[in-house]
């Protein structure tokens, strides 16, 4: 079984990753880290660059966790990428980070977390940044 975590280089993303590492250790499962970009802007700060990915890689290796890191850029939004990965790997758990948002803001911006919560076939663990 696999645990899928949606990672972004923000406090919420870090919180999700930390939580996911703990879960993976507990159940001794493979951790699949997804950091995607729609690739529709010239610059995407939510897409982790080389050094970031390398430090995650090292952190996971140090903790002795079986892991895969994927960075898909296929024009899909983050929710679709995480859900796809969960389906393909028959995930036992999805871990995501949540942001605070007003109801109106969510209506206009849409919500990646909401889509994952509604559409996932497995339990979803949503954490907030501390």
């Amino acid at each position, binding site marked *: 079984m696999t645990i899928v975590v949606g990672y972004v280089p923000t406090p919420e993303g870090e919180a999700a990753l930390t939580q996911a590492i703990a879960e993976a250790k507990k159940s001794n499962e493979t951790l699949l880290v997804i950091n995607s970009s729609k690739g529709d802007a*010239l610059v995407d700060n939510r897409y982790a660059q080389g050094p970031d990915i390398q430090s995650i890689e090292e952190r996971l290796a140090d903790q002795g966790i079986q892991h895969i890191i994927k960075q898909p850029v296929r024009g899909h939004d983050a929710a679709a990428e995480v859900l796809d990965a969960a389906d393909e790997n028959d995930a036992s758990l999805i871990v995501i980070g949540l942001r605070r948002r007003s109801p109106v803001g969510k209506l206009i911006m849409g919500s990646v977390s909401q889509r994952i919560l509604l559409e996932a076939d497995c339990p979803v663990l949503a954490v907030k940044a501390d």
Partner: protein
Amino acid sequence: MDVWSSLMDGFATALTPMNLLFAVIGVLLGTAVGVLPGLGPAMTVALLLPVTAALEPTSAFIMFAGIYYGGMFGGSTTSILLNTPGESSSVVTAIEGNKMAKAGRAAQALATAAIGSFIAGTIGTALLAVFAPIVVQFAVSLGAPSYFAIMVLALLAVTAVLGSSRLRGFASLALGLAIGLVGIDSVTGQRRLTFGQPLLVDGLDIVVVAVAIFAVGEALWVAAHLRRTPLHVIPVGRPWMGKKDWGRSWKPWLRGTAFGFPFGALPAGGAEIPTFLSYVTEKRLTKHPEEFGKGAIEGVAGPEAANNAAAAGTMTPLLALGLPTNATAAVMLAAFTSYGIQPGPQLFSSQGPLVWALIASLFIGNFLLLLINLPLAPVWAKLLQLPRPYLYAGILFFATLGAYSVNLQAFDLVILLVLGALGFMMRRFGLPVLPLILGVILGPRIEGQLRKTLQLSAGDPAGLFSEPIAIVVYIIVAIILVWPFIFKLIRRNRPVAAFTGPSEQSARSEAESPAQAGDPTTTTHQKQEKP
């Protein structure tokens, strides 16, 4: 003829609150456009042409000038922070600039670029104010034959020198000339290329042509090849420079200015060659040769000064002779025509206040750019996160709106789409767009001068050579046209003359050097078919 007092009058006009506001709008828009991918100053001015039709010409040109200079400033920001030079003139900046940014010296790179641009722009504008009236004085003495010759030179120089394929340049020029023919012949009233379509009788509106080629064609082309790899901006604080950076920057700034201005003023001189020359010079003169290739500040200071000085240089033939030497200047010339202002040597006498207000606004714009670029660089970098769908949909939206609002005819939109498709095809198959635009704009004026010339000589072709300046210009034209063939011949004979050895070698690398401009880091410029 007193330059100083005219210029002061110009400042008085340019500093009125309304015009100052347009200068601010211009530089803000220009910087944004320079930073944003896919948008350039030529396209922006083209998109604004219809909107500004209702404005005072002076205000409109003040804004356009702000956009032009602002684009130069903004372009350096992306070159340094992202290594994606948007304009060909900032390709060289990216070489050292991006290395500096990666080494944690982004703030200094941006600072030397901004201050260097300011200094070069100011000196360049001062040179413009001094030289333009001199050129005008010389130009008003020219008759139709010389003027015809000079315009032919301008067209051929742009067509034959720029771009990698002269053949494709000429194809583009010919298409532009054909588009320029559409409509009523001004002398005889005959309808040409209207195909019985009454809506074509007035000719194709230059605004529609410019918007189609620069905006629609470009948006469609980029849409077909959207880059999907996200990049990261190198984070940067407020740009600043230490004492040592000042010491290493000021000479490159001045030398860059010296390269930039004359090249900008030449037809087809452009900003690419002087930025490259400046880079090579700084590399040769530097006391820190070990830093070149790893982020030498001289390599940013010189080229950035050169491209801004070239921008000022470009304004000289535009204002003094009515000759555009790059795409933005071509669109500005179109703007003059759409205001019913006759560009050419008479411009200084007939539209003196406008011209001097424009020149004064260039000084003001430069200063404003320094103010908004130094503290706001991190904010500008944020613009890069704008999702592309909005950017390109916005270009199409405003292109449509602008082209439609000229005559409120849906027919213009059909032309917009057809010419937009042409622009797409030209980008796909490597036909440069500048010769086409120049052909559309200058074609009718060249024809006018030709007919005037032969009218004076009663149809005798010898009339074309009746002025000494005309003959000199034709000789230059001949050299430009024949040059590549001579070049080929020399090359072919080279292996035979092998005994000259080392000097031959260096001569060859010199000749090939422009091709190496993009070589160290950038990937946007690929050379095709090395001869």
